[in-house]
């Protein structure tokens, strides 16, 4: 039986830990937002309407720089993934 590669173990465990953290954090955040917006009283209704207006009036231009950098790093990641497949 061959000896397990420690780097592969490190990489896999890091991926699993980060994926679990992401799922738990995102699910908790979504649940908190839903609990905050749920309800039929006038204040919640006004809050939902105001948030809808905020979503509609959102402009990407002030955040274009950050979004472009994120797209660049996503491309880098895809290229590295492709190189992993080539090796």
């Amino acid at each position, binding site marked *: 039986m061959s000896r397990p590669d420690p780097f592969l173990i490190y990489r896999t465990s890091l991926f699993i830990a980060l994926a679990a953290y992401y799922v738990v954090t995102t699910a908790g955040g979504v649940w908190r937002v839903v609990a905050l917006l749920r309800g039929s009283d006038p204040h919640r209704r006004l809050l939902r309407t105001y948030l809808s207006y905020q979503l509609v009036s959102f402009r990407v231009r002030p955040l274009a720089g*950050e979004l472009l950098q*994120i797209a660049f790093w996503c491309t880098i990641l895809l290229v590295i993934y492709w190189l*992993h497949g080539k090796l």
Partner: protein
Amino acid sequence: MSPPEPPSPAPTPPSSPADTPGLPPPRVSRLSGMFDSVRHVGRDVVSVALGRLFESQEKSPLAPPEAGEASPAAPDAAKRVGVLHAVAQQLRGAADTYVAAKLDEIEARVDEKLDTIEARIDRKIVELHEQLVEMRDRELRHRLRLLKVTLIFTALVAVLSLVYKWVSQFWQLP
């Protein structure tokens, strides 16, 4: 907003601010009903006061004698009563006009105050909205920056993994 108009002895007082030029359009509110009732009460008070004054003048020694009584002073007394009646009528009209004008002036001032308060509330709402939009953009920029840092570290780990894979393959070749 025009300054409040002085009381004029016009026979028909302005019933609402819309009748006078320069005043704001009529506001349909509880204040209008309150001002109408106050205006009616003021007219009633003036009417009662002048009516009592008129009655006291009639019952005074200057009042005309009873019918059938032949008195040389009867025409003078009747004339005096007529003059007093005319004066009372003019006074009543002037008082009504004055009260109506004052009430309109008060109503115009209250309307002006309400408009000022409303404009201040609107300005505050706009200011709060701008602050919220600014906070939203700042929070989004912060989150995107965190995402970018996470992506950079992920790419670094991926590069490290790629190098490790390449090196391990290179050392396995011989």
